[in-house]
């Protein structure tokens, strides 16, 4: 097979008992314990959320940031199926897997944060749900997307189970789920930005704008590509595989295009609304605004040239700067630059942090399990057999 051909996906194989999976297991057990305490004794027993900052990291990090970091799947699907860039095909499954776990665990995480979680079904029940609510749009859309992603990913399981007929039938209609799997995340990732709008002046002017949906959508797309850069490099080094440079290089270029567009939109908006002077005050708000946006400028310095994009270390770092910027955009809007009035402050408690870490660990664990047991990652060309290292 030449390197230009699609490498067929294959299970990586190997043992599930490694230092990494052990650590993940312990972190998951701690998380489960904390969640039980929270369910019996209320939110204040484990978290520091309060009426000034009613949304802590379980919402902002686990759901808002977690789901944005899980946009790799739909970003790759956009490239491959919509813009017909078939060569990226080997990146689709691993990216989709990352998204699947990111979203599924984000969805699970939000239920522990809901104060009256047993009523959760109201969000989908006519007579209860409120179509004017941005939260309704986000919640309904994310739930639907999680289901769609499991359907999109199910050929992998059917393949493993040898159910070829079922798989073939499913694949006949897969194009529809793929399209749906692109529209849904675009909708709710945009709406995650719109969630800030109703909060009015409580959100600092550098982050309060009616074009929030566009900013969050662009940010989610560039995050998607940034995360794929990051994940590909990490997976390659963890499994001692080759980095798919011939794919990552042009993909990174697409990402730079989106980042450029994002920066133009972001700064035009801030300038048009007259909020630019706010960015030049000596305050931590201005500082975090610049860190957020200079991270993106740094991406151009890191991988601006074709030559630089052939360097795995630079691609890896670029993935990190993009992720940092996207994380900060959301942290800033919902926590750092959110001000309900004097007297309120928030910093996550240790159990709160442990749960967030534990959910991340669960994602890593799931990713390792599926890639080792199911055909997700492209078959390694240099080995005749799947690697057992």
């Amino acid at each position: 097979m030449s390197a230009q051909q699609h490498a067929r996906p294959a299970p990586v194989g190997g043992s599930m008992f490694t230092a990494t999976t052990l650590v993940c297991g312990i972190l998951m057990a701690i998380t489960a314990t904390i969640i039980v305490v929270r369910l019996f004794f209320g939110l204040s027993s484990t978290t520091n959320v309060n009426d000034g900052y009613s949304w802590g990291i379980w919402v902002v990090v686990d759901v808002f940031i977690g789901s944005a970091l899980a946009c790799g799947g739909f970003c790759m699907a956009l490239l491959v199926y919509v813009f017909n860039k078939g060569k990226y095909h080997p990146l689709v499954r691993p990216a989709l897997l990352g998204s699947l776990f990111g979203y599924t665990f984000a969805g699970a995480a939000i239920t522990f944060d809901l104060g009256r979680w047993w009523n959760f079904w109201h969000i989908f029940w006519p007579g209860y749900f409120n179509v004017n609510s941005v939260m309704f749009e986000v919640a309904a859309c994310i739930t639907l997307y999680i289901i769609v992603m499991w359907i999109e990913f199910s050929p992998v399981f059917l393949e493993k189970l040898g159910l070829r007929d079922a798989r073939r039938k499913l694949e006949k209609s897969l194009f529809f789920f793929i399209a749906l799997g692109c529209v849904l995340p675009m909708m709710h990732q945009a709406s995650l930005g719109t969630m800030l709008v109703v909060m009015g002046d409580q959100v600092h002017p550098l982050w309060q704008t009616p074009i929030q949906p566009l900013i969050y959508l662009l940010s989610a797309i560039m995050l998607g590509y940034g995360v794929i850069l990051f994940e590909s490099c990490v997976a390659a080094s963890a499994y001692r595989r080759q980095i798919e440079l011939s794919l990552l290089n042009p993909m990174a270029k697409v990402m730079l295009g989106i980042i450029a567009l994002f920066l133009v939109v972001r700064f035009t908006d801030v300038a048009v609304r007259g909020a630019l002077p706010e960015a030049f005050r000596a305050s931590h708000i201005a500082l975090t605004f610049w860190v957020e946006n200079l991270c993106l400028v740094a991406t151009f310095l890191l991988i601006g040239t074709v030559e630089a994009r052939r360097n795995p270390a630079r691609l890896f770092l670029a993935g990190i700067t993009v992720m940092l910027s996207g994380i900060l955009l959301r942290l800033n809007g919902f926590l750092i630059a959110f001000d309900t009035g004097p007297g309120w402050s928030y910093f996550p408690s240790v159990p709160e942090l442990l749960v967030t870490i534990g959910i991340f660990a669960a994602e890593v664990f799931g990713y390792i399990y599926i890639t080792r047991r199911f055909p997700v990652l492209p078959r390694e060309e240099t080995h005749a057999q799947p690697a057992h290292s």
Partner: protein
Amino acid sequence: MNTPVRKARAVPDGRRRFLKGCLGTVGAAVAAATASDRAAARETYQRPADALGLLYDATLCIGCKACVAACKRANDNPPEFSTTDKLWDTPLDTSGYTFNIIKMYRSGTMATKDDEENGYAFMKTSCMHCADPSCVSACPVTAMTKDATTGIVAYDPEACVGCRYCVVACPFGIPKYQYDSPTGQIGKCELCRHRYKDGHYSACAEVCPTGATLYGRTSDLLVEAKRRLALKPGSVTTYPRGNLSGGPDQSYEGKVGNYKQHVYGETEYGGTQVLKLSAVDFEKVGMPYLPPKSSASTSETIQHTLYGGLLMPFAVLGALTYVAKRNVHHEDDEAPPAEPPGREES
């Protein structure tokens, strides 16, 4: 069986399809957006004609906190302690168990009441019953509702999922959650709507000895507020107490305060049903500046433009389904056709 991949065979063709894909999707989105745009723009709501509310006149308030105690009783709320001896109900702010509180403004020597410099003043904190409430717009499950006739913003714990979007959204920080309970609810003033059937009205207004908190139809309260603003500071006038729009006359004569010429709540976010008068700058006593256009209307305009009738999502979905159907190839055990060599674009 292997359904062949519909693949871009040559660079110009590939580029053309790429562009077509982009243009088709964007075109569908824009067409749908402009179609839904006309119907979508949502004006800021105004108060219903018979809206009920309160008028709080800070210059009349003596800080006795009778209203705080009455509110506790009317809503069956437990005491909250901020002192070590725990003898009295001493909440420092509204909470999931305290829906009304009197806060104090202090400056310098605190010598005179209602002076911005070296003075002190009071301010009531409770739900404003907004004409266009952020909490109602935010709530995903219609647990926060605004009554079409009375305009009272009510809360239904049976519907609530406890997401606390209302807590985050309200510009006055009014809805509060009970974090210490596994079955915590949102707590907020509902204008004592549960007391109406017994012929009662807002407990805070019922007990207020000076009429600083006055209950009534907001339209009547607004007329009364404007009457006070037009009076000469220091002159004597009649102040009603209790229920302005009905009930026995409990009025008395008192001195006119040195009002700021602003009825807080007349236009803020489209207006509120609880109105306030103060001699100290409103922002200084914790009432934020709010434009006449509500944030709920901005938020809902965006939502309806993007998702009204699901027009735009379906347009984009249609376009994407079309291109995806052409581009998705069915994988099977055979290796799919190879890409023509030498196509690394960078």
